[in-house]
Structure formats: structure tokens, C-alpha cells
């Protein structure tokens, strides 16, 4: 009789893809603010993320004083987005397969203020881990009832809420046997062009998270946690869907104080 043992596979250099990537003489990216040098996080040169190596800049970034162009932001209020665009489960004649979820959150500035009436765009794989995109060749089924794209304008308190299905994990070519944890891509606009942000939302308890080169491009573990949604009873609906809460906080590198809202 063999005892059932708990098995845990901690991340290794191989599962994180460290070994195939050689170091090259790219300097550590930093931001210079006055006389203070701050590390970029995530740095453009992300050592575990192979595609970053040929695309990261080598020269130091130049601090951009925030002028009128940087303090303004695009407005998207003119009937561009319909309420049903936030429901990814009713874009086709049938319902998509998968675990129905509601992702609710707030768009906030780093000053803590909600960002009202601004655009949030999302995209994701289906429940099997396949994108409705011609480049995706993962041999997992497409779902004829799922496109995986949504958008919403935040309400006057910065809230957004998407009804969708939980995306599956999927393989990628970063290194042998590389798998992305389940995630939803988020693109948001802020009150200033400096607050433009694209990020990814991850799911709590995902065993792939600590192996992932993209989530792992963020060096600060506490900052990585800010990309992980939390399970949310409040938005879980009986016999309907599980709720997840994901707030998106936008702020620039240079922490320039924003002018008070008028």
C-alpha cells in the first residue's frame, strides 16, 4: 500500500524558462526622478520573458514633465459603448461553455479617486484556453458562442462589471512546456494620458502563477498580488455565477501629484 502524499512542484529554472535565456549587456532599467534613481517594475527587459529581449529599449528613459498633453485624456462618452458590450456570454445565438463568472471592480487613480465614465476594454481565451484569434494554434476547441472581448464605461463611481466565463490556461512558446495562468487582459484609460494602462487580471490560487514569466516580470511580490483578483461572495449569484473583485489603480511612474478634481 502506498500512502497518498501531497505533491507540490515548486518553480524551478526550467519551469520558469530561465535556462535558455543568456544574459546580454542591457543595463538595469531605471527611472531618474530628480536625484533619485528608481527601478522600473516591471522592467522592459524581463529576463524570463523571451520576447522582451529584442524589443526592450537599451537607453535610459527620459522623465517627461507633465504638460497639457499629458494631463488630458481621451473621452469616450458618445454612445460608443453599449451596456450589452459588458456581457461576453450573450454575443452569439447560444451560451458559451465554461464556468460563468462576474468580474466587478473599480477604476481608481493612485490618489484614491474613482475614475468615472472612462473606457475599460477586456479580452481573454475561452474556457478551453483558446483565443478566437487566427494566430492561436493551441489544439483546444474554439467555442462558437464565445469571442472573448468586452468593453464598458465606468459609472460615476468608477465601477465596471463584466459577465463572462473563466478563461482556461494556455501554452506558449516562451520555453519548453510553458503555460500561462488563466488571465483576462484589461486595457483602461484614466483622467490623464499618463494614466493609460494595459494589464492582466489573474485568479487566486492558480498554481501556474508563480511559474509565469509575464506575471513574474513584476519583481515586487506585493505588486504582483495587485494583479490577482479576489473571490467575491458579494457578487456571487445563487445558481448563476461566481463573483470576482478586481480593482484597477492607475498612476504614472513619476508620482506627479494630480490636480484636484473640480
Amino acid at each position: 500500500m502506498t500512502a497518498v502524499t501531497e505533491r507540490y512542484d515548486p518553480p524551478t529554472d526550467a519551469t520558469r524558462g530561465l535556462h535558455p535565456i543568456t544574459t546580454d549587456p542591457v543595463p538595469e532599467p531605471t527611472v531618474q526622478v530628480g536625484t533619485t534613481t528608481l527601478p522600473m517594475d516591471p522592467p522592459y527587459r524581463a529576463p524570463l520573458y523571451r520576447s522582451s529581449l529584442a524589443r526592450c529599449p537599451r537607453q535610459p528613459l527620459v522623465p517627461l514633465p507633465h504638460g497639457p498633453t499629458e494631463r488630458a485624456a481621451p473621452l469616450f462618452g458618445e454612445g460608443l459603448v453599449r451596456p450589452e458590450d459588458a456581457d461576453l456570454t450573450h454575443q452569439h445565438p447560444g451560451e458559451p461553455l465554461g464556468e460563468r463568472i462576474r468580474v466587478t471592480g473599480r477604476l481608481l487613480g493612485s490618489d484614491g479617486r474613482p475614475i468615472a465614465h472612462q473606457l475599460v476594454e477586456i479580452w481573454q481565451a475561452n474556457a478551453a484556453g483558446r483565443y478566437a484569434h487566427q494566430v492561436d494554434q493551441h489544439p483546444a476547441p474554439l467555442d462558437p458562442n464565445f469571442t472573448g472581448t468586452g468593453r464598458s464605461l465606468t459609472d460615476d463611481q468608477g465601477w465596471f462589471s463584466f459577465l463572462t466565463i473563466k478563461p482556461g490556461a494556455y501554452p506558449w512558446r516562451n520555453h519548453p512546456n510553458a503555460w500561462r495562468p488563466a488571465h483576462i487582459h484589461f486595457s483602461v484609460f484614466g483622467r490623464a494620458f499618463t494614466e493609460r494602462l494595459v494589464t492582466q487580471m489573474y485568479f487566486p490560487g492558480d498554481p501556474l502563477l508563480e511559474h509565469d514569466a509575464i506575471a513574474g516580470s513584476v519583481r515586487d511580490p506585493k505588486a504582483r498580488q495587485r494583479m490577482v483578483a479576489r473571490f467575491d461572495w458579494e457578487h456571487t449569484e445563487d445558481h448563476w455565477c461566481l463573483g470576482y473583485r478586481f480593482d484597477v489603480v492607475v498612476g504614472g511612474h513619476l508620482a506627479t501629484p494630480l490636480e484636484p478634481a473640480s
Partner: protein
Amino acid sequence: MTTSTPSTATEGPSAPEHPALLPTPSQTVGPYFAIGLRWLTRPDLVPPGSPGALRLIGRVLDAEGRPVPDAVLELWQADPEGRFPPESAPGWTGFGRCPTDEEGRFAFTTVVPGPVGPGQAPHADLSVFARGLVQRLLTRVYFPGADPERDPVLAAVPPERRATLLAKPEGPGTLRFDVHLAGEDETVFFAW
């Protein structure tokens, strides 16, 4: 999930409602962004052929000089009077979004923006998103006639690198602005 900073007693009763928050980190748009972002593809800030319209074309190239076919660019600029929404001219959004093609090419149709402040030469902000970029890259497109000594942003750029920010006339009504992510002609990118 978030960290609050202590509020001072002088901030008044509304202060605790808005504790300072740490930002959500940036992540790459990945290879499949088109399904989420192409619905808002807007290469034309003004209709082609309208008065003052010019084409702003270019390519996105990587450290080896190879075209980047899976990037998306966002242009943001003032109207010809130097204004942004909601003060700008009716119909002016100031916002463009254009994916690159298989040769790394992009093309916007826009107009020369007006001056937005003292000493600021006509410019647009340009964001580059791509697979492999964990954060967007932010640069500025300067329209012809910019005086590098007077513009405060250009003046802060090392003189030998300023040319990477200047759009170059290429035939009538056309400006070229190539984006070199890295390499000998690496474009100047900004921290914001």
C-alpha cells in the same frame, strides 16, 4: 490589496474616502490584443483629404531592425487650436489607434496640433504596445518647425538623440516617424 496613507486632521471629513493607492502593475498586451482592441481602430483623426490633413506614417522596428508586426500604436494630440476634449473643436477626439501590419507599418491621418503651452513645440504623444513590451513605450512626435532649444521636453533630451523625435517630411502632405525600439537609432522613450 491596497495601502493607505494616513490622512491629516486638516484634510476634512472627505479625506478618508480617498486614501492613496498603489498602482496596478503593467503587463504586455500579448499576441492576441487585436480581438480586444481592434473595434476601436482609428487611424484617422481627421478625414483623409480634409483641409490641413497630413499622413503620419512609419514603421516599428526591433533591436535587430526587424519589423514588429504585432504592435498597436495610440496617438494623442491637441486640435489645431491647441485644445483637448471637451474644449476642442466639435468632432475632435484627439485620439488615434492603429495596429502595425506584417511589415511593421502604421499610418495615421491627422493635422498639425496647435501650441498647448508656452514654449511647447507642436507635438503628439505616441504610445507603443506590443507582445514583448511589459509596459507601453511612450514617445513624442514633433511636427516640422520645432525649436529644440525652446521646447522644454526636447531641451531635456541629449542633443544627439533629439532627431529621433522629429517627424520628417516625406513627399507632399506626408510625415515619417519610425519607431526604433532599440538599436543604433533607438527612439527616445519617456518615463511618465
